[in-house]
């Protein structure tokens, strides 16, 4: 892969907790490149370090060693302020637990990143409606999260991740809390986004989800142990892939 085409580049990335005999290497000397428009799945069992890897990529945590580049700029040495700017403009997060604000409607949740980025309330609202339409929730924009199903909440979270048109979307077990039908909704949405050129990194322990990506990396004990380039598109076959049979 041409490094110039990379959205994300990691070299010798390491994250350690504790010291001495209690030292834990959550991420151990990882090298990684993510190309623009690529969907990458990182999979492995619980505790293998995949979520930590995702947090490092998104500037939610700092590496103990190594280099991390985003769109040609080194980000592992950024100040807290710089990381906040990064999260605001370049990165979109999707969490397993959705992490929506319970007291805000779907539309208010989606417009929040835009407001934080300094957009006018009107512009933020317009963008929120547009994104909610895109994820199929235009008619539920005024619903509170408590009035939405799990799949719908995750779609709201996806819309929120896209609010500031990020370079990279990071999804941490995005279907972990969803049933099969809702999982299908989310995967179809990811596929649409992928088609639209979005760069997506998905962390999952579910092989069926990983199979929908362009590339799959397996992780064990903090290190990448296997990499598979998935050749065929999953379009039209998602339901069968995740066991819904249609």
């Amino acid at each position: 892969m041409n490094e110039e085409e990379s959205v994300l580049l990691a070299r010798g990335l390491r994250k350690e907790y504790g010291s001495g005999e209690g030292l834990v290497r959550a991420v151990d000397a990882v090298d990684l490149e993510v190309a623009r428009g690529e969907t990458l799945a990182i999979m492995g069992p619980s505790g293998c370090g995949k979520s930590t890897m995702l947090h490092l990529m998104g500037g939610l945590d700092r590496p103990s060693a190594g280099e991390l580049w985003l769109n040609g700029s080194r980000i592992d040495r950024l100040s807290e302020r710089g990381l906040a700017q990064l999260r605001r403009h370049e990165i979109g997060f999707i969490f397993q637990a959705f992490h929506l604000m319970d007291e805000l409607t779907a539309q208010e949740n989606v417009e929040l990143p835009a407001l934080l980025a300094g957009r006018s309330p009107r512009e933020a609202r317009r963008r929120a409606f547009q994104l909610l339409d895109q994820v199929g929730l235009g008619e539920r924009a005024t619903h509170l999260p408590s009035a939405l199903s799990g799949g719908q909440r995750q779609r709201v979270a996806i819309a929120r991740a896209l609010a500031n048109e990020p370079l990279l979307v990071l999804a941490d077990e995005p279907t972990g809390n969803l049933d099969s039908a809702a999982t299908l909704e989310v995967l179809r949405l990811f596929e649409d986004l992928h088609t639209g050129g979005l760069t997506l990194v998905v962390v999952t322990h579910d092989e069926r989800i990983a199979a929908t990506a362009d590339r799959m990396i397996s992780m064990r004990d903090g290190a990448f142990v296997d990499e598979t380039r998935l050749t065929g598109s999953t379009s039209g076959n998602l339901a069968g892939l995740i066991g819904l049979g249609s």
Partner: protein
Amino acid sequence: MRHHLAQAVLLVIAIAAATATLTMALALNGVTSQPPYAATRAATKGPDVVAYLTSTSQAKKLVKAPGVANHSGPFPVASGIIRFDGRQADVFAEGRTTAPAEVDQPLVTSGTWVRPDGIVIQRTFADALGVSVGDQVTLNGESFAVAGIAVTAAQSAYPNLCNGTHLGPTPAASKFSDACPFPSFKIPFLSGHGSDTVTASSDDVGQIWMTEADAIGLTSKVNPLTTYALNLKLTNPDNAQAFAYDRATAANAPLFSTWQGLGSEDAVLVEDGHGVLEPGAVLLALLAIASVAVLVGRRLSEYARRVGLLKAVGGTPSLVAATFLAENLVLALLAAVIGLLAGWLVSPLITSPGAALIGTAGAPSFSLSTAADVVGLAVVVALAATLLPAIRAARSSTVDALNDVARPPRRRRKLIGLSNRLPVPALFGLRLVARRPRRALLSAANIAVTVTGIVAVLAFHAYADGRLSGASAVTATGLSDPVINRDEQMLTVITVMLVTLAVLNALFTTWATVLDARHSSALMRALGARARQVTSGLVVAQVLSALPGAILGVPLGFGLFTAAVHGGALPPKSWLVATVIGTLIAMASLTVVPAQLGTRQPVAEVLASEAA
């Protein structure tokens, strides 16, 4: 409880502060200075009745009156102006022989009794004037040495000197009322010579003793000798009031003081303290309730899982409520014991009679009813703050409690809409207030109580300053007023306790807000808000909550002061504005530390723990 030791300690401190103040207030309740007055009276051969005559001829009839067993005097009483070290005050100078009198021989507590050119000064007056034995003072321009300092039971101590008015127990005087209950009986006071001549009430006048020759030497054509003091011992001291009343109404009758009236007058200091401590105890109790409510709310949310476990293993709702109540009641009882002990240790300081008398105040202080009242307050505080959360815990869903499901936040559509137009810190702060209105209300109540106390103290200081400056203009330039000094000391103690409790309270509230906002704060940071913006947002939330309380505290504080002292003037506006702004700044400052600590925790860690 072991895991929540810090919270338990804070809970105990909050309740103990309120109970200690109540203990002190109760210790003063009903206390008079009769035992110290009696001790002083015994040690000074105190008179049963003192008659102030306009001529010595009036004495002959009185000393022969039925029921009079012994007497001393009549002694000439001259007026004068004493000056020392830049201070000056009016004095009554009683002329005495160098030999001890059989009735009313003041007890010299330091130095010696009067001698030519050597005067003796009443002890509280000496304290206010700042003189010691051996100092040189001037009286109407003549120099005298301070031979001694003494106490007496024949006269109310400075600043309550009020010749001839103590015919009975002092009416229930408000703390700042005129010390003389019968103003019309005041002796017109003509002091000094030439340009020094002023007419003043007998309040704030000091008592001194000097030889008869020296006392008469103070008089002049413009300052004639018009008063003589005659001390009477009766065969039955209990008849003193009847003796005085029978003779007080006749034409040209002398003015009388009785030992009962003087004893009551000397209790004014202690009664003043009660007037200060009682509203102080109410304020502290209110603040304690607010503190406990915040703490208990926080403890409850942390105990939610335990409540779930208790219910899951078969605990009934009433058992859950009883367990939670019992735990907090045990802490309240512990706090009551600490409060009682602290109040008991401090009370002697505030019930002491001061420098005017000897001996110690009698203490009906620690009866069973006092203990019951104090324990009752602690229990009421704990119940008031615990009952609702306990019932809520009992009614909560077992599954929700096991999953530690937080109470859903409130949605305030208009506030959310308004916040969209604000900078990030204000947006976040306003939304935090909107999502937990009850906590905001509690925070406002906390601040209202604190500001109420501070404004009441300021109002008192303004009053005291006015009173002192008024006094100095007429009589006692530069002298301090022991009554006001004592009240100010008590107010200072209460203010320190109030502010300490308020600071603790603010910390509880702030911590609770920071902990409650952990998820929102972490999410805001994940979405691109800077740590500083999140910290500022938390500060904005606290200040927004505190603002109405701070403003409301101003009229409440002045109302409290007015109710407590039956009058008074508003402190300068600049003081009030400074109080409101200072309180808000303090609140903001107290929020910064926990807020910053909260933002140090990695976002991913918080989000993971909240999702778990």
